[in-house]
């Protein structure tokens, strides 16, 4: 884990997702831009655009603004 961190204003969510080949679909969920497959959190759950909270290393783990994700991220 690096000692540097990048944070983004939530209004940049779509641009950040686009950089990883993802987007928010019409139902408001994060999906792969090419395949349309839902992007899942580490717990195997769909991620709404509002809940999308970032990306970390590990085949790109997508974070949700969820209390369990917060605890797991903080304790890694």
């Amino acid at each position, binding site marked *: *884990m*690096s*000692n*540097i*961190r*990048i*944070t*983004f*204003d*939530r*209004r*940049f*969510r779509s*641009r*950040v997702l*686009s*950089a*990883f080949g993802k987007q928010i679909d019409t139902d408001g969920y994060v999906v792969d831009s090419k395949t349309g497959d839902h992007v899942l959190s580490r717990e195997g759950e769909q991620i709404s655009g509002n809940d*999308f*909270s*970032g*990306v*970390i*290393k590990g085949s*790109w783990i997508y*974070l949700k*603004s*969820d*209390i*369990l994700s*917060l*605890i797991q*991220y*903080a304790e890694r």
Partner: protein
Amino acid sequence: MPWYDFLTKIVPKNLVFQLKNVRLIQLRLDIKGPFLVVNDNRKTILQINPNQLDSIRRDRIFSQLPNLVQSGIDVLSDEFATDSDDYKERISSSSNQDIITFFSGKIPDSDMPILKASLYLKSVLESGGETRLIKERIVYRFGVRGRNISNLCSAGYFDSLLRPLYDQMSSTSRYSHKKFLNLYEEMIVYCPFALFIHSHMSPEEVKSELTRKIVAMKEYGIQTLNIHGIGQYNVTIMQRVVDEVINSQGMGISKIVEKVNNFLIIRLAIRK
């Protein structure tokens, strides 16, 4: 350092010398110019407003994010970063670590994340912070069990009741962990000695729940019942409903009221 090489191509030359000290890069919309270097708590922060940049540099910033993540840099929303730092700081207090260490291996593993989330909520509550969203997230993720554990934790029952209970039970020769777990489960699921008023409860629901608990007190010989309320709305309902229910029960129940700001605890005890 991939991030350093990438930034030297983005920032103006007069900022390059500060890059080696940067520990946080913030993509923001609220700074006037494209770049601002801030020193905060001995940490150097580079703030970038991508919308103030030309399209080439703006695109370069976002297109580099996957490489930067691959190199081990976390890319997080502002709120998630702030919340996770806050959680880390609060959960690392000696009192919280003491509780976590004590109950680890003694309560179901699946309850440990709930306990940790609850200790975080308690810490925010005690410092006067806003807890509504944290509580909602606990209930959303962990359901009624999450609500019950966080209520018990916030009211201090893990330390004041469950811990001494375990110590007492485990010191006897007939102790079995299963017995403790059964009792723990009853406390978490039924909370026989406490009632927590939350904002989704109508006065009728409070009355019904309180009546049920007082009847259980009589039936099971529970001597005390503590009613907890936080926030003006809940406190008002409690004060209105409790006397009404006690009077209707026709048995000697004494009442002690403790009010601190918007916290109210009404302690009921069966008069002997």
